[in-house]
């Protein structure tokens, strides 16, 4: 706004001298008027025009018009004024005389350019209110008047109209009015012309045409569609230039001088004369009714408190701000009710070195850790830290932490949404959970070192046994032989071939006999091994040769079908075989009674006939059970009492053989029992299971295991008690032999003490089998183990 005015005023600079007198006059007049004049912002047009007319009469008063235009802040008025200026100047120059015609010419040419600038500006701000339009027409009229009065300036005016069209009316053929063009998009016509006929849309051509045009027409880029006519218009160079300037945010007119010197017309200097000199309107002396109305409204609103003064507002604002006071004056107010069983939120963990902006170098991620971090993108809670440690070499380089807000937000969520509960935290060392046991060193002697390996079998050795002197070792193997070894030297004394796989062997506990019991295939063999004392050997033979009289007893059919006592032929007799019991199915285990007369055998597939008890002296067998109680795994005789322990798949039953009743049923809580052994005192029982457990039953205590030992990693296949020392051993498929201390006290109130002592692992693995049988030396703290690697090992202390 300011610039055009400035430009308009410039021509006057030359004329200032001439006008000085006039200006002085005017200023005097203005001075008399109060400042309030300036506050009247809107000066009505007609009044203004009046003024203009007055001014034209005495054409020297150009300043007053400028004054007026200054007050009126409109483009239109600016333009108008500039035209006025032109006229005035020319008239002035005429009046003043021809003597400075040169100056005038130069000025007029410059004026021309200036006026054109005005116009272009006006054009840019075309969307105008109707009032402005009226103004412009008025000024046109005025211009005509002026031109009629002063012929000399006519030429210049004509020139103006030739080049530029001042009216904002364009070639409008369509009169559809100010409606949305989209509404007519589907119709054939664009609108209606002056006669009310449809203006048909020109043929625009299809895409192909357009494309061809684009390819061929060099002016395509400057072709625009006129929305009024629907026709293409090619922009001229000037238009293009104009658009470019506008888009570059420059003043559209090229010639416009942006940095022309500023003329401070209304300076702070007090002039002698008023600038304008017209009487005040009457209205300005009368109080405005409208304003009075407004004021009364405001007063009413204030009175009613609808609106507030600034002070009141500030006061109110202050009231709404939280005011703080001494809240905790008397600390022990008892009546305040709090949250029921309040659990305060736990505090956040404090940061460690890794979170530092300059951490020690070891905390920074290396490539591997970075990879791990990226891998856990979908499971961020598994990550080591919740951030990537970073190192900045100076504090100014540390950026804001991008997840800070998010973290605080999550904390807020935790505070009001996370369920709280009091959790007891164990603050103990894990070592304190391990039971305190006496040190193994205090519980010596027990076997610790591998002393002798007995090698000779060619297949798995399933069972071993020693005689009561501890001099000879008997072993039975899958290679269908039994071997007798000298314990101290490791020499194999004898090898006796059998008919089938030897599953169980046991030396007769009777000290006067040298007999062994062997379960081989379907047969139970009683063999005189022919080692040891010669007298005993021969005595045994003589005892066995006595035929008991069979007549007084009748062997039941059931027993007959189960087992048949036979005497071996000559050849077999030479090998040592004395008696042969042929069972109807495979025999898995044999065991002697403590006296050495009775022996038991297990025929696992025998259903109700699976347990067989035979008497050697009478050459007689009996089947104690009429009913199968499950798959029998193992049987043992009580060392002192006439009790029989029968281990089925999941339970151990104890029977009184005299009363022929079941005394106890022990619950093992395991899936499959493999083997068991009875403590030499007879009150404790050790059961090994295929599910890796060993169960110690205290028969006086309970029917449930006193202790469950999970010492082995795989199935336990052999367990044994030492006859004299408080030791027991177990062997399992993981090839380990574990020696444990198992002290049984005579005091009934004291429970047995069990301490694992030593783990020995020397057997070789074979088909996933490890140790198959375990046996203690009768009086030394030595242990034998036989394994699937077809060796027997002796461990001594």
């Amino acid at each position, binding site marked *: 706004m300011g610039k055009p005015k400035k430009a308009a005023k410039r021509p006057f600079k030359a004329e200032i001298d001439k006008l000085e007198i006039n200006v002085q006059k005017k200023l005097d007049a203005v001075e008399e008027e109060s400042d309030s004049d300036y506050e009247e912002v809107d000066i009505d047009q007609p009044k203004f025009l009046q003024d203009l007319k007055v001014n034209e009469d005495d054409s020297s008063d150009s300043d007053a018009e400028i004054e007026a235009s200054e007050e009126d802040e409109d483009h239109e008025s600016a333009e108008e004024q500039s035209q006025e200026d032109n006229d005035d100047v020319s008239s002035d120059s005429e009046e003043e005389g021809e003597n400075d015609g040169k100056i005038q010419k130069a000025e007029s040419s410059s004026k021309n350019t200036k006026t054109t600038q005005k116009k272009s500006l006006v054009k840019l701000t075309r969307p105008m209110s109707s009032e402005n339009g009226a103004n412009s027409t008025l000024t046109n009229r005025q211009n005509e008047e002026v031109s009629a009065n002063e012929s000399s300036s006519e030429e210049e005016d004509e020139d103006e109209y030739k080049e530029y069209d001042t009216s904002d009316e364009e070639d409008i053929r369509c009169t559809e009015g100010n409606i949305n063009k989209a509404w007519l998009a589907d119709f054939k016509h664009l609108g209606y012309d002056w006669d009310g006929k449809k203006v048909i849309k020109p043929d625009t051509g299809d895409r192909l045409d357009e494309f061809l045009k684009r390819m061929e027409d060099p002016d395509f880029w400057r072709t625009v569609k006129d929305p009024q006519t629907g026709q293409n218009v090619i922009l001229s160079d000037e238009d293009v230039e104009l658009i470019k300037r506008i888009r570059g945010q420059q003043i559209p007119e090229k010639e416009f001088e942006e940095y022309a010197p500023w003329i401070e017309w209304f300076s702070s200097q007090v002039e002698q004369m008023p600038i304008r000199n017209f009487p005040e309107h009457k209205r300005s002396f009368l109080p405005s009714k409208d304003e009075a109305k407004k004021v009364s409204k405001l007063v009413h609103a204030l009175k009613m408190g*609808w609106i*507030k003064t600034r002070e009141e507002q500030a006061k*109110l604002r202050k009231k*709404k701000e*939280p005011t*703080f006071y*001494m*809240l*905790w004056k008397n*600390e022990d*107010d008892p009546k*305040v009710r*709090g*949250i*029921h*069983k309040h*659990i305060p*939120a736990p*505090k956040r963990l*404090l*940061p*460690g*070195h890794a*979170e*530092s*902006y*300059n951490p*020690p170098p*070891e*905390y920074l991620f290396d490539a591997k850790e970075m990879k791990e971090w990226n891998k856990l993108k979908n499971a961020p809670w598994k990550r080591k830290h919740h*951030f990537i440690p*970073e190192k900045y*070499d*100076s*504090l100014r380089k*540390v*950026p*804001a*932490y*991008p997840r*800070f*807000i*998010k973290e*605080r937000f999550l*904390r*807020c*969520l935790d*505070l*009001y*949404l*996370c*369920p*709280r*509960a009091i959790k007891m935290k164990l603050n103990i060392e*894990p070592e304190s959970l*391990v*039971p305190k046991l006496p040190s*193994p060193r205090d519980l010596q002697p027990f076997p610790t070192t591998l002393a002798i390996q007995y090698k000779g079998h060619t297949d798995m050795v399933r069972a071993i046994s020693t005689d009561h002197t501890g001099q000879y070792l008997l072993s039975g193997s899958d290679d269908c032989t039994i071997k007798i070894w000298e314990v101290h030297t490791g020499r194999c004394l004898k090898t006796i071939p059998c008919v089938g796989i030897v599953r169980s062997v046991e030396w007769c506990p009777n000290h006067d006999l040298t007999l062994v019991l062997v379960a081989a295939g379907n047969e139970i063999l009683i063999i005189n091994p022919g080692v040891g004392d010669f007298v005993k050997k021969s005595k045994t033979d003589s005892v066995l040769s006595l035929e008991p009289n069979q007549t007084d007893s009748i062997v039941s059919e059931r027993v007959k079908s189960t087992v048949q006592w036979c005497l071996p032929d000559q050849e077999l007799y030479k090998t040592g075989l004395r008696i042969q019991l042929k069972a109807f199915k495979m025999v898995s285990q044999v065991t002697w009674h403590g006296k050495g007369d009775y022996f038991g055998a297990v025929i696992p597939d025998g259903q109700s006939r699976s347990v067989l008890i035979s008497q050697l002296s009478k050459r007689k067998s009996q089947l104690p059970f009429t009913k199968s109680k499950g798959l029998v795994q193992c049987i043992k005789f009580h060392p002192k009492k006439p009790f029989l322990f029968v281990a089925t798949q999941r339970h151990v039953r104890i029977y009184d053989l005299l009363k022929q009743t079941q005394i106890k049923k022990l619950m093992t809580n395991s899936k499959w029992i493999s083997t068991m052994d009875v403590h030499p005192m007879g009150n404790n029982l050790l059961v090994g299971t295929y599910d890796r457990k060993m169960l110690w039953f205290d028969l006086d205590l309970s029917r449930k295991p006193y202790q469950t*030992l*999970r010492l082995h990693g795989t199935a336990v296949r052999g367990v044994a008690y030492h006859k004299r020392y408080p030791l027991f051993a177990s062997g399992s498929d993981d090839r380990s032999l574990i020696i444990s201390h198992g002290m049984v006290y005579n005091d009934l109130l004291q429970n047995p003490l069990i301490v694992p002592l030593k783990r020995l692992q020397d057997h070789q693995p074979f088909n996933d089998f490890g140790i198959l049988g375990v046996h203690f030396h009768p009086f030394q703290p030595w242990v034998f183990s036989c394994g699937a690697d077809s060796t027997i090992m002796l461990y001594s202390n």
Partner: protein
Amino acid sequence: MVAKRKKKYSVGEGAQFMTRKAALKKLQLSLNDFRRLCILKGIYPREPRNRKRAQKGHTGIKTLYHVKDIQFLMHEPLIHNLRDTKVFNKKVARAKAVKDKTKLHQYLENHPTMPLDNIVKERYPTFIDALKDLDDCLTLCFLFSTFPSLAHVPRDQSALCRRLTMEFLHCIIETKALRKVFVSIKGYYYQAEIKGETITWIVPHQFAFEPQHKAEVDFKIMSTFVEFYTFLLGFVNYKLYHDFNLFYPPKFNNMVQNQNDQALVDEAAFLSERVLALNFPISKSNDVFEEDVNIDDFVSEGDSEEKIAEAKKEAERIRKLKTLFKGLKFFLNREVPREPLVFAIRCFGGEVSWDKTLFVGSTFDENDESITHQIVDRPSMPNQFISRYYIQPQWIFDSINARDLLPVNKYFMGEILPPHLSPFNDPERDQQYIPPEERALYDPTLLEQQHKKDQEAINKGDDEVEEDEAKEVDEDAKEVTTKSKLSVTKGEVYKEVPWEKSRQEKQEYRLREKMVKKKHKKLYKSMMEGKEKRAKEIWLLRKKRRLHDEKQAGEKTIKEGKSVQKKKY
């Protein structure tokens, strides 16, 4: 007659808990209002002992509140306030819709406010309770004080937060309560001790605000928290100021505006600017505030001698810490973060100033000759004063954490800084990695040893040549001895293998381990796993450190070799 059968879940855990849905129904509130109420009142869901029973037989996970909590909420007058707000919102929406400006204006003028002071008192019956729960409050307020105006957040909240947090900092400065500072990648951790409570808060680094995704962060919820926290912090500030004999809206002793300024600047704005500067001591209402008490006075019989001695020592150390920077004059360069450093320095009695154009409140000029330390964070400076140390800001923080003025030579301008360690690590805890720098802090002799080692490592490079020669000589000598043919083999002394014993013990322990009761087996296993994991972590860190050190030593020797070569040429 048959007794009436008892309904299931009418007693016990089933009757103690309430799902959120049931709570909403009972309170007749919308979810938003309920959330607001829960946040303000500090009600939270509870984890039942048996979830299925607590959910009355329903499986799955539901948000369960204690029935008593909900009853507690039911008697809360704030519910009426929430309902008023609801009505108000409807009125405003209607006025907006019909474009009734006057009514709208009128409504907005009288919008309902929520007085929360009762709730503060209810949640924290004693001042100590409030101090205990101040961590989250401070952190969130400090964060909010950096926020621009946001949608759904009251306009003046961030300004209020700024004011309150600054007042709190002033209080900390006056009472010299700060104990530890840690610069992490997240922000500045401060730990202060007020009335025996340790309060830790985080102040984010500069430009903490970042627009968040809608699904990620809900500023409305945070703003509700802040609404409560501002109340809490305000009351805590008031109480603290009162207890330490300060005027609550902070006043400054000898703060006189220039005549020119007085005309131009609003009094309140002038004051708040000084508050933000953190550089002026606020005036006390009473100068006789002395906290120091001898520990002897309070010795109870239960305490042992050692404990008392320990406590005394600690008190002495803290007394020393409070005057750590006394008599030192600091000048902050333009690039140094002003606020944290001014706070840290002033908390320990130092004097500090900065460039006048940086912020209001600078007290002395850079040209002041009495400045002892200038804190810079740039590699070099053209004009330097000889009378002062040019140090990096980490020196301040490390000195505070070490509770002593550290030697400045490692922190000079342009030096590569030693690592900045966290002061929150507890050295007593076992199974944690302690970096060598930290170990040196506890035992300064170690540091010397390390230095010596480094020296030796450097010297080694020179010695190696000599050693090689020496070796050759030895080998010659050996050859001579082997040539003699008469040989007597010495009887070998049986040596016990040193690790045999430990191996045996380990084996025994492993067997004993299997005797752990079944009840404790899982616990034991998980504990041992944790232990192993920690051990592995330590091993890894140690290895990384070793590799790093070796690499660095290698570089050093190469460098020195080069320099030696250069000398030769």
